[in-house]
Structure formats: structure tokens, C-alpha cells
């Protein structure tokens, strides 16, 4: 029965889902770290408190994503990661620094706290920049030419800005008072970076290959794709409009920018996935060529179908338990 399933496609979908969830979830907590230098010391404690219960599980989606790549597409895993050797190393160092700084900044002697704050921000920045660099290089086909590296450096900056933006919208939702006002201000500035970044990627992606160009601008494919840019534009408009009015009385609609940004990220991701499908190593290796043996995939699929909904359920439980403003986590 299992053999009839399109296992490579299912695992590609699971991989995509994991990456998207990772980018949204770790995106907002990396973003909070990137915004550290703009906040006062007391605000930083609140910012950390707002992501404290979540960051660990958020990062686990990266492990799941890399795990699925490793398990389901071993050849692609090797091909992609050896090409990205240095940016991966930078990202790992960043993730190490910020992950441990979380704990150390609260437990180390007070005179060391500043150093750990720098490690937290610096680590978040390294992770954001290197992930953006990898994204750009992936779009360009994973080869190092001056032109590709230049593009990747741009995407590095834009993804980092996008992370700080979703981080700021998270803070609008989870904080109040001066910090919330600051977060609104950060979001108003950051959204320009998000627009520019999405624009840049959209501008270049169709020219990576004729195949993608045809998927974008050939008929009737263009019609199928058209909802993506239209909905993205609507969402950006909605976020813009809301940001001008926030914070509102009784804190209404503080969740809107964050949720709308998640939808925006999902649309951008869908556009990417649409463009590159069925390739997993751009224009070189398809998911069908790279997939593992069906026996191995089906045994994982059985577990995944049972466990993944459970994971999502208790993750939701965790977000529900820690609902409300982060400041309520204080000693008072």
C-alpha cells in the first residue's frame, strides 16, 4: 500500500513544511536577538522573557528539516551541505553563541551579563546572515561566482531584516508600554526591508533558468501563480495600515502584524517552492533522483504521521500556556 504513495513528494512537502515553520518560529526569536542593540537593559530582559519558553522548540524544527533532508534525500544532503560548508559553520557558531547566551546571561555574574548580551545579539545576527546567504546561493544554484556571492550577500542582509521584522511584530503582540511602542517603530522601518527583499528575490528568481521563467510567465501557468503576488501585496498593505494605528486602545489587534507576517512568509516560501519544484538541488537533482529507498521512507512516514500531529498539538499547548503579555512573567 505504501509503495503506491508518492513518497519523494510527501517528504519534499514535509521538508518544506519544516523549513517554513522553522523560518517563521526561529525567525521571530532570532529577530528579537537582532533587535537587542536598540533596546534598554530592562527591555532586553522582557524581550528574552517573551521568547524564553519557545526558542528551544523553535530551533528543533531546523533539526527536523535537516533530518528529513538527511534521511529522505541523502545525496542532496551531502551535495548541498558540502557546498555550503562555510556559511553552515558560521550559522552553527551563531546558533551556539545565542543558545548558550540565553542561559548564561541570567546565571553568570552580573558583570559578565553585557558580554553575554553581545554574544546573544551577535549569534542571532550570524545565524540570520548566514541563513540568508545560503538562501541566495541556493537560488543561484549553489555555485560560487562573484555574481552569485554578491546576490547571496544581499539576500543575507534582507533575510536578517525580515527576521528582525517578524521579531518586532512578535514583540508588538507580546509586550506593552514603551517596548511595544518601540516595536511598532521598528516594524514600520523594517517593513521596507521586507518589501525590498521579497522584490529582489522575485526579480531574480525567474532569470535563474528558462524553466523557472516559463513557470512564471508562460500561459496558463502565470494565471495559477498570480494569486501569490496579489495576496502578498494585500497582506503588506494590511500590515502597513495596521502599523500606522498600533498600539490601539485595550491593545486590540496587536496580534495582527505578527500573524499577517507569518502569512507573508508562507506566500514567499510557496513561491520559492513552486519555482524550484521538482528540483532539490536547483536545476541539477530532482527529489525523485535524490530520494532514499522506499522501505526506509515508509517506516519514517508511519512514525511521522503519528508523531507530527502530536508535536504540533503540544507545541500549540505550550504557546497557549504562555499566552498573554511577556511582562507578566516578572517577579511581581
Amino acid at each position, binding site marked *: 500500500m505504501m509503495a503506491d504513495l508518492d513518497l519523494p513528494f510527501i517528504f519534499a512537502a514535509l521538508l518544506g513544511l519544516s523549513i517554513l515553520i522553522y523560518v517563521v518560529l526561529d525567525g521571530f526569536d532570532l529577530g528579537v536577538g537582532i533587535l537587542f542593540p536598540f533596546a534598554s537593559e530592562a527591555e532586553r*530582559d522582557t524581550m*528574552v*522573557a517573551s521568547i524564553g*519558553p*519557545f526558542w*528551544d*522548540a523553535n*530551533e*528543533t524544527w531546523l*533539526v*527536523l528539516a535537516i*533530518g*528529513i*533532508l*538527511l*534521511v*529522505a534525500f*541523502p545525496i542532496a*544532503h*551531502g*551535495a548541498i*551541505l*558540502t557546498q555550503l*560548508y*562555510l556559511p*553552515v*559553520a558560521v550559522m*552553527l*557558531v551563531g*546558533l*551556539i553563541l545565542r*543558545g*548558550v547566551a*540565553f*542561559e*548564561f546571561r*541570567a*546565571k*553568570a*555574574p*552580573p558583570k559578565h551579563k553585557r558580554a553575554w548580551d553581545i554574544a546573544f545579539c551577535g549569534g542571532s545576527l550570524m545565524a540570520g546572515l548566514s541563513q540568508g546567504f545560503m538562501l541566495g546561493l541556493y537560488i543561484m544554484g549553489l555555485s560560487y561566482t562573484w555574481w552569485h556571492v554578491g546576490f547571496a550577500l544581499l539576500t543575507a542582509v534582507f533575510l536578517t531584516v525580515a527576521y528582525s521584522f517578524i521579531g518586532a511584530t512578535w514583540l508588538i503582540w507580546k509586550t506593552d508600554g514603551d517596548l511595544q511602542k518601540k516595536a511598532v517603530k521598528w516594524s514600520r522601518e523594517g517593513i521596507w526591508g521586507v518589501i525590498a527583499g521579497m522584490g529582489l528575490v522575485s526579480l531574480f528568481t525567474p532569470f535563474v533558468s528558462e524553466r523557472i521563467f516559463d513557470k512564471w510567465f508562460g500561459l496558463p501557468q502565470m494565471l495559477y501563480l498570480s494569486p501569490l503576488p496579489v495576496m502578498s501585496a494585500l497582506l503588506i498593505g494590511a500590515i502597513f495600515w495596521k502599523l500606522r494605528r498600533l498600539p490601539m486602545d485595550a491593545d486590540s489587534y496587536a496580534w495582527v502584524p505578527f500573524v499577517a507576517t507569518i502569512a507573508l512568509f508562507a506566500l514567499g516560501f510557496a513561491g520559492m517552492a513552486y519555482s524550484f519544484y521538482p528540483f532539490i538541488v536547483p536545476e541539477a537533482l530532482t527529489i525523485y533522483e535524490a530520494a*532514499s*529507498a522506499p*522501505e*526506509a521512507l515508509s*517506516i*519514517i512516514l508511519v*512514525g*511521522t504521521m503519528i*508523531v507530527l500531529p502530536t*508535536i504540533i498539538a*503540544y*507545541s500549540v*499547548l*505550550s504557546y497557549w*500556556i*504562555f499566552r498573554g503579555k511577556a511582562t507578566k*512573567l*516578572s*517577579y511581581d
Partner: protein
Amino acid sequence: MDTLLLSRIQFAANISFHILFPTITIALGWVLLFFKVKFSRTREKRWMDLYMFWVKVFALSFALGVVSGITMSFQFGTNWPGFMETVGNVAGPLLAYEVLTAFFLEAVFLGIMLFGASRVPGWLHTLATFLVAFGTTMSAFWILVLNSWMHTPAGHELRDGVIYATDWWAIIFNPSMPYRLAHMLLASGLTVAFLIAGISAYRLLRGDRGGDAATGLRFGIILGALLIPLQILAGDMHGLNTLEHQPQKVAAMEGNWETQGNVPLLLFALPDEEARTNHFEIGIPSLASIILKHDPAGVVPGLNDFVAADGTVTHPPVAPVFWSFRIMVGVGMLMLLASWAGAFLLWRRGADNLPRPYLWGLSGMSFAGWVATLAGWYTTEIGRQPWLVNGVLTTEAAVADVPAPMVLSTLIVYLAIYAILMVAYIGVITYMARKAAKGEPLPRDERTIGAQAMAVPAE
């Protein structure tokens, strides 16, 4: 140095750094659950104080374990693509099940355990604590299944250079898995026992009269004294299992060159692979034969059996395996001595009146579990060489073709970061112990605010 050697050093550095923290969290999770249940039953403040102190160490260790674990999962791809390409059909599902059944469980419920106490009912917080402990143990289970399979592969077949799973039951319960799992879980228990005993001893030496330091000391000593005989038994059985499946590793552990009877147990020797003999041997006659074969005349395999006719050596490097094994056993013996002497002293004098030199000795052994655990892993992992998967895939065949200078540069960065983090980790635990000894509140910690609230009557 070439890419292979550098990649091996880098992976060894990463995995050595990583394993230190799971070794603490696997057992500490259960210990915290014990403290919490003890507090709910007795309502005695000292159990809550113990929980509050050690939950911070847990959170710190957990974070270090997570970030160093992520590093490893990426290094499979960046440095060892041949591993997944050849045995991915077996290793992949095992790793996937680890992430799915253990990693998420720990990560999500850790948040609730650390600061959910004031937000969820008491039973749910206890359940979260249990699920975190259970998750860390599940994680250890899957990883040790995979590691054991690499030592004693079973339940697979080779087709066109790629491994395919044929029997998952045989893969999971491969011949060395039960022994390795038991040995590692006990190692974790002992590491935590000596960490708690050692840090508590240090607090008492610094004049801590909080009550929880003495309780921690007693808890650590008794746990250590109970586990160490079990560990010696498990280690012995694990060794016999290795003798059956990887005789070349046991030959290196014993420094035994010729297959023969009446093999002495060497206490000291300098193995020389060039001359294929030992220098300056000091040994107890026939004891190795007795331990391994339960017979003084028992024939024990020798290293020279593992040299092919063309001179190719198929046994592991001798000196590192020989010495790592002796360090592990030596620390184990020291633990036996320290914990049993401690148990005797506790019985005679009570936890508040232990002699100061003994307390200093114990605090010096706070991280003794790390030394023994690392030495044990070096014994078994170096002892598997030149194989990555015993008899299936050599380490050399799995390495990535990354330029050596690139590996060297990342290796230097990793080593520098690990050194800093190691100093910071031990430094912060010592700092917390000194603060606690002075009776000062620990630094403001927004991550344990919920747990703080638990000290307030919670039903």
C-alpha cells in the same frame, strides 16, 4: 594534516563536547523529578531549594547540549556525506525517530518545566518534568541504538554498495545495544551523583548552612555508592560482548599482541605499534584471561591476528585505546572508593560532620564522571577504527572532499568556542554554588520565575 585527520579531530571535538551535557541532563532530569516529588510529599523546603539550584544547572546543560547537538547533525552532511549515502537507510530512520519522539518532547516541555509552574496545575508541571526526563532518555536510546549498530551491525543487507534494512527488530536490538545503553545510562547517573555530591561538598566547605547542601551531599554519595557496583557489572558484561563481536578492540584494550592463554592484566605499559610489543610492562599474571574467559589459561585474541598478509593493519591504534580504557577504569575505581567511604562516613558521622579533606576530595571529583565517560567513549570509538560501521564502511571512505584548510579553520573556531564555553560553564556553576553558600539569592533569572512561584503553597 589532511582532510581526513582534520575532519576526524573536528568530529571528535564536537561529539566530545556534546556528550558532556547529555551525560548530565539524562540523569539530572530524573533526579529533578525525584526532588520535586519528594517536595510534594514532605513539603520540606530543602527539597525545593535543591530543585531550584539544580534546575538551573539542568537548563544550562540542556542549552549547551542542544546547540552542540545541532552542530553534529549538520556535520554528517558537511564532513561525512559517505556515511548517509551508504548507511542512510538504517541511520536515517533511527535519527528521524530520535528527533520526532525525543527532541521535540524535551524542547517543548522544558519550557513548561522551567517556567510554567505558576501557569499550569501542579500535576501538569510534574508531568512536564517527567516528559523532559523521559525525552532525554528516549533520545539516548535512539542514539545508542544507532551507535551500537555501527559497532555490531545486524538486520541489513548490502546491494550495490548501499545498505538496506531487512529486519528493524534486529537493527534496534543489535548485539551490543543493551550493554551499551545500560553502561551509558549508568555513566550518566554516576556523573550526576558525583556532580551533586561534589558541588554540595564545595558549598558546605564554603560554609553553606542552608540544609539543601547537606541533603544534596547525602543524596549524591548514596546514589554514587548504589550505582557504581552496577556500573562495574554492566561494564564487565559490555566488555565480554565486545570480546565476542569486536575482539580486535579488546586486544587493544588489553595491549595483547599474541593470541595466547595466561594473558596478564597490564596495569602499565607503553604499547609500541612499530615494534609490535609493549615496553615497561607491569601486570598481574593471568588476570586478563580470568576476567575475559573466567579461566587463567583462557585464550585471549591478540592484535597480530588482525594484520593482513600484505601488512594492512585492521586493528585500531593501540596506545589511545589502551590508555583511555585504563583512565576510565581508574576513575571508576576512585568513584567506588569515594562513594563507599562516603557512605560509611555518613553512617558514622552524618552529612554535617564529614571530614574536610574528604569534602575537598569529593569537590575535586565533581566532574569525574565526565573524565570517565569521555575515556570510555574514546575506548569504544577509537577501538572501532579503521571502521566507521564495523565491517561495512571505513572512516576514510565516508569523509567529504572539503579542502583541508577550510576544515582546519572551522576546527580552530570550534575549539576556541568550546574552550570558552567550558570555562564559562564550570565558572557559572561554581559561582552559583558560592552564591548559594553565602545564602544570597541567585541572579535574577526570568527563566525560572515560574518555578520560584512553586515554593509558594502549590496544591
